[in-house]
């Protein structure tokens, strides 16, 4: 009785604001675009008390027919995978160092990793724009040193996009890696050393395999938001880099094609479900 009272508010909230919106998303993806507000016709019409199907698979079919969408999805997956891999490569030594630091120093080091978060995502993006653009800080320094004559086109490039992505999601990769590495018993690596393994060997055969779950979590925490990212490609990326998040945004806000935007959202979910399920199986096996 008491438990039901505790359970009811979050359950009702989540049903209304998480489950219902996803169901509506599915319904709108099957509806016909229409002129009006809202700009679609519900897939079910009521005819004298009887429901009549008037939906269409046109939006879902358009995703398959127009190669633009598959390209946007693949490009988003590639950018997200590279982001995840770069984040891991940079985060791993950071997390290892924090995990092996003296316990009283760890909170400060973790804080230094997390604090950039509190400065505001858009402010960090504007800092990158200021650094990378033609008349920006980096080009100014390069020209000042006489290394380049004309400004290098740094902004609105794939490299700038990756830089922004890695900068935004790096802390997400550090935290789970730190959590895993700080729980490892240092005696394990010492045992390997005592048995004659060189440090590199002990790392490759003991520490690294044991930290894989943390690495997988860190990769996914960067990969998932990066795959649907809209703001970073819009502000830093090349105009032709149509990632799926950007295409969805354009279909919704510029073309006002809500059914197509909903279909794209479903496609994005479908693409992301696979890595998440793989990760869950990995967790269960552990």
């Amino acid at each position: 009785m008491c438990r039901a009272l505790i359970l009811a508010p979050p359950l009702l909230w989540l049903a209304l604001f998480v489950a219902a919106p996803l169901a509506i998303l599915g319904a709108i993806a099957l509806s016909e675009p229409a002129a009006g507000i809202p700009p679609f016709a519900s897939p079910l019409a009521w005819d004298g008390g009887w429901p009549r199907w008037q939906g269409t698979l046109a939006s879902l079919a358009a995703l398959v027919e127009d190669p633009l969408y598959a390209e946007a999805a693949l490009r988003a997956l590639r950018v997200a995978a590279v982001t995840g891999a770069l984040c891991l490569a940079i985060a791993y030594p950071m997390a290892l160092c924090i995990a092996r630091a003296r316990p009283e120093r760890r909170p400060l080091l973790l804080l230094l990793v997390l604090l950039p978060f509190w400065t505001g995502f858009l402010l960090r993006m504007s800092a990158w724009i200021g650094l990378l653009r033609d008349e920006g800080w980096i080009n100014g320094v390069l020209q000042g040193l006489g290394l380049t004559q004309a400004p290098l086109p740094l902004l609105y490039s794939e490299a700038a996009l990756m830089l922004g992505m890695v900068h935004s999601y790096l802390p997400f990769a550090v935290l789970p890696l730190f959590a895993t590495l700080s729980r490892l018993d240092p005696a394990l690596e010492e045992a390997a050393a005592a048995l004659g393994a060189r440090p590199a060997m002990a790392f490759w055969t003991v520490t690294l395999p044991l930290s894989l779950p943390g690495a997988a979590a860190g990769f996914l925490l960067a990969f998932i938001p990066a795959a649907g990212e809209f703001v970073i490609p819009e502000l830093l990326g090349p105009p032709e880099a149509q990632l799926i998040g950007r295409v969805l945004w354009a279909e919704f806000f510029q073309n006002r094609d809500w059914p197509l935007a909903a279909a794209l959202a479903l496609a994005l979910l479908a693409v992301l479900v696979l890595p998440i399920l793989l990760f869950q199986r990995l967790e269960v096996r552990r």
Partner: protein
Amino acid sequence: MHHPTLAGVRPEASFASTVANGRRCAMRRCGLIAGLGFLWAPILLLAGYAFSADRIPFQWGGLSLRWFGALAANDRLIEAAWLSLRVAAGAASLATLLGGLAGWALVRGGAFRGRAAFGALAGAPLVLPEVVTGLSLLLLFVALAGATGWPAERGATTVLLAHATLGTAYVAVVVQARLAGQAREMEEAAAALGAAPPIAFLTVTLPLMAPALVAGWLLAFTLSLDDVVVASFVSGPAGTTLPIYLFSRIRVGLTPEINALGVVILGVAGLALGAAAWALRPRRG
């Protein structure tokens, strides 16, 4: 932690491995310093150039506070910032209440029908891409307005509801982690000593959850203050939050005012952290 036999082996294994250890340690330290440098460099440059008089951001034109003055005189920005702070505080408070209940139910609620589905719903916003969350919530508000007439107009309220939903998922995770790490014995002891369930909850469970609730509130608050995508979908003309304003501003071009805003935010975050560190400082006696 150290195994006794290993501790015994160490001295012989040692000199070469100590040297190697020291070198590895230095390498790792370089990795950490380089990583922190990468995270902090743009932020520190932004903060430094906020004090430059030049009209072009990131160009030095002598020390000046003029952009802080311009910031204070920018009514639209100030208005958006107040709206964002109010929305974030409301959303975080709602999220702490709902997420606290959800986290408690998932760890201490025992087995109930639909527990797995409930857990999946509570965790879903964590893995949904922002564009999907934003679009689906907007479609919900449109459907609700069509069916019930509410919300007649989208704006601050709808953004608050959307952010509360996101925050609930984060608070629930933090609370679950905290409760799962705590033994149940204390609550059982309270019950065995005759405390009625509400009393045991208020005097034992709630204090146990408190750090997670505070951390969750802060997390939900920052998420809300930082969100452009979900807010852009569910907001209307009357609900221009600070990120929506900044995003439209940055798309047009940079101004040094944004750098000045960065310094203000860093200062506030630093003050808040200092206050938290002071409140949580180790006490004697």
